[in-house]
């Protein structure tokens, strides 16, 4: 791989790592709240979170581009919040990745929390554990496979992101040019040798991640 591809790989890994960490921090309280919330509007909230699963990435990218635009009030607010322009920047593709991969983080954690039996929570409560002790000593250890699955799925999904990143970030080397975009660029410019290397790397990586995930889940069940 050439220097450009290595740079794209480093940027991709950085984006995937930061996205996975931030999403885990967001998904855990969000999934906990959802698993305990009983309200008719719950289905709508769940649908909103799951929307990126079925929405074409370009649709999400298009709306995010409008929101991130310096001409829009939201874009101006976000620019002042992040102290940078979001469109065509690393921060922009990070925010887009977080939104795009949200269901991959929330769903496994939500499933894990939902499968913690109510009697465990009742027992913890009657033993006088505080809500935080109950969560950290009972719920979190019983849900660790959900956390692990969420982290791996978000990481792998972010590595493979293309449409939304291209629309939000474009193709700026060192800033928004991730592996999938670099691959697209190399195919466009007929650099098939380089494209083969990146493609093979992504295939092997995806296979390894999914194998590890299935192996871990099987061990957890047994």
């Amino acid at each position, binding site marked *: 791989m050439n220097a450009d591809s290595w740079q794209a790989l480093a940027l991709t890994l950085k984006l995937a790592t930061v996205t996975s960490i931030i999403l885990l921090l967001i998904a855990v309280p969000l999934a906990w709240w959802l698993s305990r919330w009983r309200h008719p509007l719950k289905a709508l909230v769940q649908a909103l979170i799951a929307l990126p699963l079925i929405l074409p990435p370009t649709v999400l990218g298009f709306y995010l581009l409008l929101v991130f635009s310096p001409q829009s009030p939201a874009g101006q607010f976000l620019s002042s919040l992040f102290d940078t322009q979001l469109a065509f920047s690393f921060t922009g593709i990070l925010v887009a990745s977080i939104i795009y991969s949200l269901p991959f983080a929330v769903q496994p954690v939500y499933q894990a929390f939902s499968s913690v039996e109510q*009697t465990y929570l*009742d027992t913890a409560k*009657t*033993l006088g554990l505080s809500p935080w*002790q109950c969560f950290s*000593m009972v719920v979190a250890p019983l849900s660790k496979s959900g956390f692990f699955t969420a982290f791996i799925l978000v990481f792998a999904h972010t590595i493979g992101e293309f449409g939304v990143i291209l629309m939000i970030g474009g193709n700026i080397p060192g800033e928004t040019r991730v592996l999938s975009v670099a691959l697209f660029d190399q195919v466009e410019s007929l650099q098939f040798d380089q494209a083969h290397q990146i493609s093979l790397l992504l295939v092997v990586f995806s296979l390894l991640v999914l194998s590890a995930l299935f192996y871990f889940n099987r061990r957890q069940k047994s």
Partner: protein
Amino acid sequence: MKMKVTVSRGQWQGLYQAPLPDTPSAIGVYGKSGAGKTSLLRALAGLETHAAVTGVPAYTRPTMVFQEPCLFPHLTVRENIQLGLKGARNGGIDYNDLVEPFGLRYVIDAPLRGLSGGERQKVALVRALCNNPDLLLLDEPLSGVDAISRLYLLSRLCAIRASLDTTLFLVSHQLDDLVYYCDYLLHIDEGKITVAAPMQEALIALNREGVAGVNRIAHVEQEPTLLTTHQLSLSLTLPLPAKHVVTLEGKYLTHTRLPGGLWRCEVEVDSQVLFVDHPGWLLSENLQVGQTVWLQYVPLRG
């Protein structure tokens, strides 16, 4: 002190009103399945969302043990018990003092996987006791344990409860257990308390009402008396802190010789086999298998 507990769960409503003893006591809760016994305990434990509790002291540390032991599967026996110390009243109780009497010494560092149902219940009980509760709510916690172990565990439990000045609510389908270990009885039917009185009075009231299970108890006396029928009575001399003399009706099964010259008589009471060990004097009786006999629990003196 008059307790009033209301519980609402969908269409089902429970209204529990009854006078309670003023001092920490062992209170038995009796009633048929679905009568609302568990709902009362859950309300007292603060686990019912739509419930209001008035008239009982403000318990700072209610602890409940459920019918299923509810041990945390990611922890060992010791870690499960130690969790009971985290939210304990006044720092809790040293669990090492409880591990031996409850027969958990050899499994204390074991994972939960290999534990029997009875051992799991013992762990749940020790965990609850470590919590040093001022209100201990036991919802048939020993239903899966054999009769002799159950009697032994209940006797230990009640002795510890008395030493801690803890109020105990014990739900059981075994009226004998409640008669034996509790001072006070609540009878619940269709979400209401129909009888609430000291044990002696409660049993008389329940007997008068023809509540199932009570008529099987032939005698409830403060002092031992000889049965006047021509049928045989056997005195149980288990080392248990009985409060009342209770006579139970059962079917004679068999005799076996024990090491040391004693004989063990087996009697079936309510599908459970109880044992009476004696020097052999019963063998002179012409006992037939299936013959009706009475077992008499006699309080130990001193």
